[in-house]
């Protein structure tokens, strides 16, 4: 459970904030040493905020988020402008002059596993402190399984397909699942948390991960397929799939996906999506067989180093296609599609048999301030700015935030604009000329609603290497290429 608190910017709250962080960290699974380290980092940030606040009733917000592998503490405030890079700690100066400027931030950088400072301009500032939750990796407990990739080949199983036992995964399957991943991918699998049985177990127990495990009649686990529930919407990502080499080519993957779709329906989920890599078209074709359709192309979604051994030396970061399956597609959708993307978004919806009904904006003025939640993926160094309300200040806040994220070595940023309420038209107009490209439609992605995704990346992308399979995917790609050319031309002409 996440927590959100608002505190008065006063020196007396520093201890309470640090205490809460300490207890929160212990409950999330950190040991006392790491909990103290997180607590200290929070103490330093809050001290900085309190010192920078003006007289009076200033307040600041703290948000505590956790998942199975990490804790994130976000401190938001509106105090005086601050740039941590201009206040670097110098121990010689501290000793000689007693000036400890930057000492607090220096400690935060040391005691946090990640520390990100985001300046959102007049929309305030955010300090983000991340601690990883330690867990035992699979390597120290591996037993009983066939050799890891690259070792001796295993003869193909002769077991008839109907003799395999398919069952929904339970927490007790966690260790077998981690071992399956290891014995299929070694340590090259992109989602690192699957190597930590404790994290897998917790995710299964909390039903954040729903999965199918296949066993032989003797009980040996040979295949696994999982979907990860979205945190803020009733959809799931079909994300982890392995079949031991000796048990491939007998339809296990197909059966598992069918079962997963059944589980998703039973759970009342509204859709499933997969991130299909675009270094080839295999994943997109397989997804299409099950009724998934490409709705977006995300450029440089994760680093090529995370994809080693599957494609050797791929020369650029990996772009993915978002393939979405509506479990019970509506016949029509009333949405506020911006003029610029109306045609292509209509085609994306049409793939799912959904007719778009263009909602009409009553012409109400935009609110002054936008509502934007910044979500950072610290593993893949990307961020999503989820805009729940478009305000007059959208482009100022978004461009300032993106610039801040780029400086913090987060080179891929997506902006999700709501299509279920007025504002997308103004948002697209405001962001025009700021270097954004179309990504596509993110159906039911936040709060059970549809969003238009724009993207911006610092990674050089050769679109020739981005393989789009379906006609609509190719059309999205064409549109992205065209916007890239336009942006380049605009930059050249100033």
């Amino acid at each position, binding site marked *: 459970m996440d927590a959100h608190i608002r505190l008065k910017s006063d*020196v*007396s709250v*520093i*201890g309470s904030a*640090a*205490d809460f962080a*300490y207890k929160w960290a212990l409950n999330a699974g950190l040991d006392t*040493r790491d909990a*103290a*380290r997180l*607590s*200290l980092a929070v*103490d*330093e940030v809050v*001290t900085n905020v*309190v*010192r920078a606040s003006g007289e009076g009733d200033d307040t600041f917000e703290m948000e505590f988020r956790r998942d199975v592998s990490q804790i994130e503490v976000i401190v938001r405030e509106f105090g005086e402008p601050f740039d941590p890079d201009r206040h670097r*700690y110098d*121990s*010689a100066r*501290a*000793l000689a002059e*007693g000036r*400890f400027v930057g*000492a*607090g931030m*220096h*400690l935060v950088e*040391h*005691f946090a596993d990640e520390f990100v400072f985001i300046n959102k301009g007049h929309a305030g500032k955010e300090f983000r402190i991340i601690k990883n939750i330690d867990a035992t990796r699979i390597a120290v407990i591996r037993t009983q399984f066939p050799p890891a990739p690259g070792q001796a080949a295993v003869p193909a199983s002769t077991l008839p397909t109907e003799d395999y036992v398919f069952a929904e995964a339970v927490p007790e399957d966690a260790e077998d699942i981690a071992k399956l991943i290891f014995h299929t991918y070694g340590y090259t699998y992109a989602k690192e948390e699957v190597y930590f049985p404790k994290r897998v177990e917790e995710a299964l127990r909390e039903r954040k991960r729903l999965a199918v495990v296949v066993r032989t009649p003797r009980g040996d686990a040979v295949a696994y397929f999982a979907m990860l529930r979205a945190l803020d919407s009733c959809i799931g990502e079909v994300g982890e799939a392995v079949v031991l080499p000796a048990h491939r080519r007998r339809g296990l993957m197909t059966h598992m996906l069918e079962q997963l779709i059944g589980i998703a329906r039973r759970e009342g989920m509204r859709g499933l999506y997969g991130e299909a890599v675009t270094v080839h078209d295999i994943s997109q074709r397989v997804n299409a067989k099950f009724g998934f359709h490409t709705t977006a192309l995300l450029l440089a979604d994760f680093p090529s180093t995370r994809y080693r051994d599957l494609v050797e030396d791929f020369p650029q970061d990996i772009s993915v296609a978002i393939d979405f399956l509506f479990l019970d597609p509506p016949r029509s959708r009333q949405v506020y599609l911006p003029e610029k993307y109306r045609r292509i978004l209509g085609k994306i919806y049409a793939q799912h048999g959904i007719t778009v009904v263009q909602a009409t904006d009553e012409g109400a003025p935009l609110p002054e301030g936008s509502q934007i939640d910044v979500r950072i993926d610290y593993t893949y160094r990307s961020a999503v700015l989820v805009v729940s309300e478009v305000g007059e200040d959208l482009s100022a806040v978004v461009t300032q935030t993106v610039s801040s994220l780029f400086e913090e070595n987060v080179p891929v940023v997506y902006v999700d604009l709501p299509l279920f309420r007025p504002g997308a038209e103004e948002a697209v107009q405001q962001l025009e000329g700021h270097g954004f490209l179309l990504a596509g439609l993110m159906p039911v992605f936040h709060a059970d609603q549809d969003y238009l995704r724009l993207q911006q990346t610092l990674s050089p992308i050769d679109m020739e290497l981005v393989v789009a399979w379906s006609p609509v995917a190719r059309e999205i790609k064409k549109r992205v290429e065209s916007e890239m050319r336009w942006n380049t031309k605009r930059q050249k002409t100033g």
Partner: protein
Amino acid sequence: MEYEKAEDRLKVALQRDFNLFTAERIEALAEDCTHVRIDMGASKIVDSEAVRALYRLVGAGKAVHLVDPPPIFFEVLQVLGLDDYFARHLTVRERAQPEQGASRDV
């Protein structure tokens, strides 16, 4: 925070973390003292404001003695590059251990 003041000696027993709030109070109380003893047994953390306060107390010529600081204190000094300085300028007694310099393993 509990404290005792006798002539030029101040004894403080922290009931919470050693941070800006407690550092300001200790500095104010210690103004006219030459000896300051701080029991940190109830503190989980000691932050940069506390270190700055200790630096000022030492710099003002006061004899500073710390009792039972949390393990993170020594790491904080090391990260800030102040471990050698404090090893020379204040004394530390860890719980159930004889008095020694702040250099424990810093």
